[in-house]
């Protein structure tokens, strides 16, 4: 296979969208006739009905696609049920939102001690938490959703389990939020640099402990 054909093959493989001859020529730094020749070579290499990958010419240009004959297998692969269990990071984030809501991301990060962006995004995508306005410092606040109550079989937030049975120091009378922040700080939760979670709100937690 010529170098031109190899390059065009790699480009078609990587591109999520169909590529025109002009686009291919520009990226590969080839003349359009060379690109056309490369595409002809590839058409021979990927004859319709014989390979799992087919070369298609669509309105926008050329693209690779999977062979329609493999669609059943592809569906089985891609629709594997996503595991319903929460990762430890997601479970912690969800628990913090559930018990402290509304709560901001910097506060979650401070309690957990690590950046919580991806867990928060996943929980948002799965509809377990939702935005609940902004704090006085401009950070997005989160609360749990109706779907959350449904999935956890709760009639209302009052039915969240009493934490005291898992509380390592149940005799402490201080507010839950304050204690979580204190434990987070003790674990080094303040280690996240400013900017890791926008915006930093050092005073907010203090302000809110009075709630």
């Amino acid at each position, binding site marked *: 296979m010529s170098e031109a054909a190899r390059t065009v093959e790699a480009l078609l493989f990587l591109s999520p969208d169909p590529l025109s001859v002009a686009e291919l020529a520009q990226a590969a730094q080839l003349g359009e006739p060379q690109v056309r020749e490369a595409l002809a070579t590839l058409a021979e290499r990927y004859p319709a009905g014989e390979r799992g990958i087919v070369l298609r010419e669509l309105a926008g240009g050329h693209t690779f696609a999977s062979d329609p004959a493999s669609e059943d297998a592809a569906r089985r692969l891609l629709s594997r049920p996503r595991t319903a269990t929460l990762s430890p990071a997601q479970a912690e984030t969800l628990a913090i939102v559930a018990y402290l809501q509304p709560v901001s991301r910097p506060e979650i990060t401070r309690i957990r001690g690590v950046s919580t962006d991806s867990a928060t995004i996943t929980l948002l995508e799965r509809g377990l938490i939702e935005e609940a306005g902004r704090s006085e410092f401009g950070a997005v606040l989160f609360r749990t959703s109706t779907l959350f109550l449904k999935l956890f079989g709760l009639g209302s937030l009052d039915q969240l389990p009493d934490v005291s049975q898992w*509380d390592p120091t149940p005799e402490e009378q201080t507010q839950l939020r304050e204690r979580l922040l204190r434990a987070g700080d003790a674990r080094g939760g303040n280690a996240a640099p400013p900017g890791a979670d926008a915006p930093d709100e050092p005073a907010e937690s203090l302000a809110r402990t009075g709630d």
Partner: protein
Amino acid sequence: MSVATLDLDLDVFSGPFDLLLTLILREEVDLLELSLADVVLAYLDHLEARDELDLETTTEFIVLLAALLELKSKLMLAGEHEDELIDMEPEQAAEELLARMLDARRYRAAAGHLRELLAAEHGVRFREAPPPAHLRRTQLEPEEASQDPTALGQAIGRLLALPPTISLRHIAIPRVSVAERLGHLRRLLARGASFTFDEAVRGADRMTVAVTLFALLELYKRGEVDWRQSESFGEIDIGAPGRLAQNGTPWGNGTHPGAGAHSGNGTPPAQRLAAVAP
């Protein structure tokens, strides 16, 4: 310029050196996270920029840095158990330090290997196009009450757990500030009579002794105090300028009190400073 005002711009700290020291003593800056090599480099840059070697401040710097180095190496040796390092014999400490050095060396080499691996994969790309929508069957609605709320309570319980304090407590650093010791010395000076260093630190722990010495140096620099040691291993007399009982140079027999001569209890002040790290 004194070392105290040396301006630092480090990963974990930016500001004057004395503030850094204060923050370390107050445990607000984690010494483990501080690159002491960077502090040295900053000082060397500073020396180079000034193009002159001031032995006095350089000495001060070296003594302080030695104390920090020792403190840091002890911190790095410290295990989860606070008493561990206090009980450590020199041989044991050397073994432990060697193990740490090997660890650091190992993973630095492993890091080099990883970088080589990554470089060898240069140009290898993967397809990132999402699979066509028609092949992604819609997700099944999750079942009602399929999740257990106790998992949430447990998570909160774990987050409430306070880690065991691996603090600097075993280094026995009381929270004593230079400012506080400056105030203490000034109060003593204000009484008018001269006094000895031992009197100034009577009953104090080693950290307070060290910080008091630091404060004394500071007062001397500002011209607020004179001090004198009439003989090696002798008392250090301290008084307001011109108020010391004896005549002669403030250095007595020429020995700088901070430079290795011994004060009353047999511990030279410089050593006390170094002994900040027990």
